[in-house]
């Protein structure tokens, strides 16, 4: 009871909170939990990055240099799983935890204890996943999609992977239920749905997607497990099952899943670009409807990942046309971001630079997606480096860049310190140049026919692989700059005390900029007056 009322008394009442390590283990504070998520995801980002380093080192030259082929497959699989489930998803949940309560004027997340559990499920799950490297047979090596029958035939590492995914899925579902409930039930009076910042909107829709598809994935990996140990034949044709069924179920989860990683990206971009263009976001309501349309479409296009698997022609045609439809709402978004910048008084601080790079490079990644949606063309692209180039363009210079942008954008508000703009810009230029050296040549390799998931390749692919690897090494090393900047900013940054709005006129763009910098431990214990965000 005491604690319940302590909360109502004031902002800086730390007296009843555990301190030291227990503060973090037992925390119910959305900012603490957001911080934990972000530290975890940054750690996983570097672990996944080390695996990528191993991949690019092997592919630097033709021939087998460093890894046996099966170890190489473990590297690609674990790189994918760690980056998707360990780095990108938790990072956006971290930003959601920090920002959503502040953006909608709520005192905290709806379920504070469950919020703690959602986070603390992740580190042990990650440990379980990574420890699979050290069991007989090694880590899962069936690709991040863990297709049957490869995955039903692998060693015990696969079981650790399956259980880790179960736990991470449970964490995601709880985190999402928390986010949806917070947004729907805890907005300050006057904060109507159509006044919410786009980051909140995109997360509302993302959380819905997560609640809908994470259980589907749990079901799929459960069937893998029973096929492995309990004699079922879901994915075994001898018993009347079908390995293609696994692919259908996986991608029914997997396609919404890739939008789970991009929709919050859209939300952050739609938050940052107006601030540095000094204009309200162009087409706010069309952004909301476009996000919802993309989410809806994500449920009905999954088999475009499986054009070459042997589907009836009607299926090929349906999934081809349905997939092309996605370009429409996505195009709306790209045009809206461009129109927001049009005739704006733009300045180019690091968050804005990353956001502009995102708009350009995401569009490119989107267009290669459109190329692959054409089923007959996809017969050539399928399982080549063209696919690898495509999805890395929509994940690295899109999701990851926007995560970096979000870090630069909100760290000053959170810490009260300004980051070093010079190093920030250096980080941006190093990243944006090297990411293109890294992934652009992979388009050429793919079109020329280089398959993905191979440790060795024909000599005609040697040149572009070497270029790509060099880009990869530079990109990897550049991210150490980000790590440095984050630590430096937390420890005081440039020493300059930032104002409450941090960025010029940012208070016009969201409630969080009306709070003191650094943001107090508890915010909005009484509901704020909602200043209507300007929408065009």
């Amino acid at each position, binding site marked *: *009871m005491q*604690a*319940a009322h302590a*909360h*109502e008394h004031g902002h800086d009442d730390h007296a*009843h909170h*555990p301190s030291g390590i227990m503060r973090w283990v*037992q925390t*119910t504070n959305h900012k603490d939990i957001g911080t934990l998520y972000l530290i975890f995801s940054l750690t996983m980002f570097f672990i996944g990055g080390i695996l990528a380093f191993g991949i690019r080192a092997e592919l630097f030259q033709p021939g087998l240099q460093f890894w046996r082929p099966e170890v190489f497959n473990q590297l690609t699989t674990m790189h994918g799983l760690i980056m998707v489930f360990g780095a990108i998803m938790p990072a956006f949940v971290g930003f959601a935890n920090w920002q959503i309560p502040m953006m909608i004027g*709520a*005192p*905290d997340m*709806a379920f504070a*204890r469950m919020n*703690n*559990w959602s986070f*603390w*499920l992740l580190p*042990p*799950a990650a440990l*379980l996943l990574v420890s699979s490297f050290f069991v007989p047979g090694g880590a899962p090596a069936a690709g991040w999609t863990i297709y049957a029958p490869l995955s039903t035939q692998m060693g*015990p590492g696969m*079981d*650790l992977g399956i*259980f880790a995914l*179960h*736990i991470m899925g*449970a964490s995601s579902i709880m985190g999402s*239920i*928390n986010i*949806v*409930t917070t947004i729907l*039930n*805890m907005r*300050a009076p006057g904060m109507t749905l159509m006044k919410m910042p786009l980051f909140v909107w995109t997360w509302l829709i993302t959380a819905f997607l997560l*609640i*809908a598809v*994470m259980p*589907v994935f*749990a*079901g799929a990996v459960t*069937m893998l*497990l*029973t096929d*492995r*140990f*309990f*004699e*079922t*034949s*879901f994915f075994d044709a*001898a*018993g*009347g*099952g*079908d390995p*293609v*069924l696994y692919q259908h*179920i996986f991608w029914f989860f997997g396609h919404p899943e890739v939008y789970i990683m991009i929709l919050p990206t859209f939300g952050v971009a739609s938050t940052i670009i107006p601030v540095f263009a000094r204009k309200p976001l162009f087409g706010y309501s069309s952004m909301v409807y476009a996000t919802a349309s993309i989410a809806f479409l994500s449920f009905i296009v999954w088999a475009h990942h499986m054009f070459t698997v042997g589907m009836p022609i009607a299926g090929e045609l349906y999934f081809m046309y349905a997939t092309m439809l996605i370009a429409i709402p996505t195009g709306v978004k790209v045009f809206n971001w461009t129109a927001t910048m049009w005739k704006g008084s733009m300045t180019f601080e690091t968050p804005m630079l990353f956001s502009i790079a995102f708009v350009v490079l995401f569009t490119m990644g989107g267009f290669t997606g459109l190329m692959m949606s054409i089923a007959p063309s996809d017969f050539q692209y399928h399982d080549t480096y063209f696919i690898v180039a495509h999805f890395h363009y929509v994940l690295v210079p899109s999701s990851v860049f926007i995560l970096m942008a979000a870090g630069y954008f909100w760290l000053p508000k959170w810490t009260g310190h300004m980051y070093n703009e010079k190093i920030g810009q250096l980080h941006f230029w190093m990243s944006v140049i090297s990411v293109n050296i890294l992934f652009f040549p992979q388009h050429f390799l793919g079109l020329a026919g280089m398959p993905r998931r191979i440790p060795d390749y024909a000599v005609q692919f040697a040149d572009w692989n070497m270029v790509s690897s060099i880009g990869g090494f530079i990109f990897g090393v550049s991210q150490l700059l980000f790590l440095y900047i984050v630590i430096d900013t937390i420890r005081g940054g440039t020493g300059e005390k930032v104002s409450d709005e941090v960025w010029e006129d940012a208070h016009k763009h969201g409630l969080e900029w009306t709070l003191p910098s650094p943001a107090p431990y508890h915010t909005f214990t*009484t509901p704020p007056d909602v200043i209507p965000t300007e929408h065009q």
Partner: protein
Amino acid sequence: MSTPGAYYIPSKATWPVLATAGLVILLAGFANYLNGSSIGPTMMIVGFVVFILMLTGWFALQASESESGMYSTCVGISYRMGMMWFIFSEVMFFAVFFGTLWYTRNLSVPWLGGEGIGAATKELLWPSFDAVWPTNGPAHLGGKIVDGKPSGEFESMSAWGLPFLNTLILLSSGVTVTWAHHGLLAQHRGQLIKGLIATVALGFLFVICQAIEYHEAYSEMGLTLGSGIYGSTFFMLTGFHGFHVCVGAIILSVVLFRSSIGHFKPENHFAFEAAAWYWHFVDVVWLGLFIFVYIL
């Protein structure tokens, strides 16, 4: 009370870290057990016990907070929303297995039998396979044990014996839980408790009937998890449903216990509502099972 200012934010969370410990030990133990490591079962027991202790502690804490009036209307709305979304996630979980049944029955098994795109498959791989549901596949997996070996022969489960009885049991339990709810709202404690006792009893009766059905399937009908896709989908769907019935019945038992010590008021009984919603969800899933697994 429904302003965010009065929203209850606990100052610390003690149970989640124990929940994680229990769950991770349980699953890591399971992985060990599956792969033949001797430490597996011990880890599973330890993890399970820790998890049950955690559930008891966490829910006891929630119950005492609720009874002491710490949850405002706004908090109550959050809990209800949370429960609805949780049930939605459960619906999607069952949807996978229903989808699997639909896909194999209507698409992949006919393809194996040579229909549509499967003509070449049948010709080259399984020329003698007759694609008729229920099937245990072209390799005739599992089946009744004859001379110590599986014969590949199995019987499918009929809808009109125990399964039909179980349908009646679950449907009546839906009525009794609603009757109990009316008792709670009208402050008739006796009706509330009687209704809950009936519901819990019907729930466990359902589980017993299903256990008998499973026993019969395994011992006499040659119907096991290993009897091809029919056995796989049959046991996966009914098994996960049965597990949910157990969980629902345990939740209702806790609600019954809390009712008997005077918890719940007409205006504050989220736990009862959540349990009842969950129970109705389990009920509806069963109707789906009865139609798609047993009758059709």
